[in-house]
């Protein structure tokens, strides 16, 4: 077959694939947004499905004015940022230890790092809540900040392990021959180089924390301390759904993370890239 034709077919096919996928990916969010601007009556009918008519801002006004949405947002930000910081910091040094340092038990730990994902959170949360309570962190955002790393650190660690291993060891050796300690080499040479990986890991941890529902539901009772996912689900009362507020809240909950990802996605790719270099 003519190479030019094949090449062109390939390009057309590629764009076709991407556009199709784009539509499938974006449509639910478009739908969510459109619904959030629809009034009660329009939602129950099939009139003007794809565009609000009229455009109604009641849902947003109710959400921001009459519910504690703003407080939920603040709580989610606080918890997500704090737990991300914690998870990334702990995961980074842990990953470095498993990737570079030699000590007894290292092989076992690096194989076991992903095993923690086997434990279904849907069951774990019952004894975990008892644990959190013993630590005196029940009904506080601190409980979430401490608990979230338990399911983000393994992935962060695994990601950064691969990343560290991709950095040539000669760099550290050179630093140490120059007189730096192991720790110094880590801090001054390795860490800056690993920035994309750390960023990718941080993004992952942030997303998981931002979207987490079950622990936030159970560990927190104070209404003012709720996070966004729990707050949103409170719009489903029995069999009367507040679709309008729900979708408005969903839009506002999803936007920040989407914005962050679109802006930072190339670091995400870079961060994951090195993690796979070794094989």
């Amino acid at each position, binding site marked *: 077959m003519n190479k030019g034709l094949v090449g062109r077919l*390939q390009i057309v096919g*590629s*764009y076709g*694939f991407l556009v199709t*996928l784009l539509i499938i*990916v*974006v449509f*639910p*969010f478009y*739908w969510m947004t459109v619904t959030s601007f629809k009034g009660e009556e329009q939602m*129950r009918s*099939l009139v003007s499905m794809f565009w609000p008519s009229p455009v109604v801002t009641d849902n947003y006004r109710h959400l921001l004015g009459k519910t504690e949405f703003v407080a939920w947002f603040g709580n989610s930000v606080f918890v997500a940022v704090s737990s991300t910081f914690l998870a990334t910091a*702990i*995961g980074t040094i*842990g990953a470095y*230890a*498993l990737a*570079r*340092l*030699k*000590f007894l038990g*290292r*092989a076992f*730990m690096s194989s076991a790092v*992903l*095993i923690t*994902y086997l434990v*279904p959170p*849907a*069951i*774990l949360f*019952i*004894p*975990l809540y008892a*644990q959190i309570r013993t630590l005196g962190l029940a009904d506080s955002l601190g409980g979430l900040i*401490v*608990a979230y*790393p338990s399911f983000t*650190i393994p*992935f962060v*660690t695994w990601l950064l392990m691969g990343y560290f*291993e991709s950095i040539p*060891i*000669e760099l550290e*050796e050179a630093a*140490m021959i120059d007189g730096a300690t*192991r720790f110094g080499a880590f801090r001054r040479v390795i860490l800056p180089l690993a920035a994309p990986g750390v960023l990718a890991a941080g993004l992952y941890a942030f997303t998981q924390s931002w*979207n987490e529902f079950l622990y936030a539901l159970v560990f927190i009772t104070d209404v003012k301390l709720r996070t966004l996912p729990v707050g*949103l689900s409170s719009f489903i009362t029995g069999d009367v759904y507040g679709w309008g507020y729900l*979708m408005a809240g969903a839009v506002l909950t*999803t936007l920040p993370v*989407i914005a962050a*990802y*679109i802006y930072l996605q190339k670091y995400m790719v870079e961060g994951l*890239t090195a*993690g*796979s*270099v*070794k*094989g």
Partner: protein
Amino acid sequence: MSISTAELGAKTALGPKREGPLVGLARMLGPDHRLGYLFILPTVVLVLALVAYPFCYAIYLSLTRKYVGVPPVFVGFDNYVKLTFDGFFQRAVVNSFIFTFGSVAVKLVLGMVMALVLTSGIRFRSFWTGVLLIPWVAPTVVSALNFLWIFDYSLGVLNYMLVKVFHLLPQGVGWLSEPGTAMASVIGVNIWRGFPFFGISFLAGLRAIPAEMYEAAAVDGAGPLLRFRHVTLPGIRNILIIVMLLSTIWTFNDFQIVYILTKGGPGGATQVLPVFTYEIAFGAQRLGEAIAVALYMLPALAAVIIVLARYMRQGRSR
């Protein structure tokens, strides 16, 4: 990872030779044990306190008869034995397998195609990559509720489009009401949510393969299919394994999508293990058995993880 000779030489050449039990201990613990243990300590503490300890307690509970608010009564493997012969449990296992493997298989292919397309000569690559990540990034609760509304038979937009806009079908489809389509629908939503993870991981993996390898293969006369099989696949072997493993575990444990869309219905057609566990825990309040359901598949999955992890570590140290 192997120790470089320079490093080894540096460590043994300097420093006076001293023998004694402490040095022997230090040697056993490894040359970097001080910094190593220090760095790994926070992780270990956190995992032990918040994962291992509750997990062990959960294992213990699975060996008891435990109702809410009542102290547990040890019954040994009773719960597990009962489950093995329970038709409803068996059906949940089958459903879980169908759900997991159906979903992971499609996500694998979709992610791979996505990665291949994004590394070919297309423009606006950052834009595509960013946008295609979105489903993975949104809260699952929100997405599931969204799809519940989209799949609605009479007021949902999917049927509206199929029937009234594109005239593809005379009537809407009962997406969540027929057993076949219900399972397909929940799998579909899981795929929608999860494929970006595959895509972006493979994308990263593909970018790490040096272009020279492709050139060399092309020079040797290999066509695109052979190049894929002999350069691409081996090149991303490790990431392929890891991503499939993680996704299998996460998909297997996925609760929210199925619960919000069908609650396990109709007639138990989409009853997967996490939903089954949930019902026994909070519907029947039989915590011991609920945990046994959740832990039943664990040994098999753990064995797979350990084997694969070892396989990959060997690959790495080559």
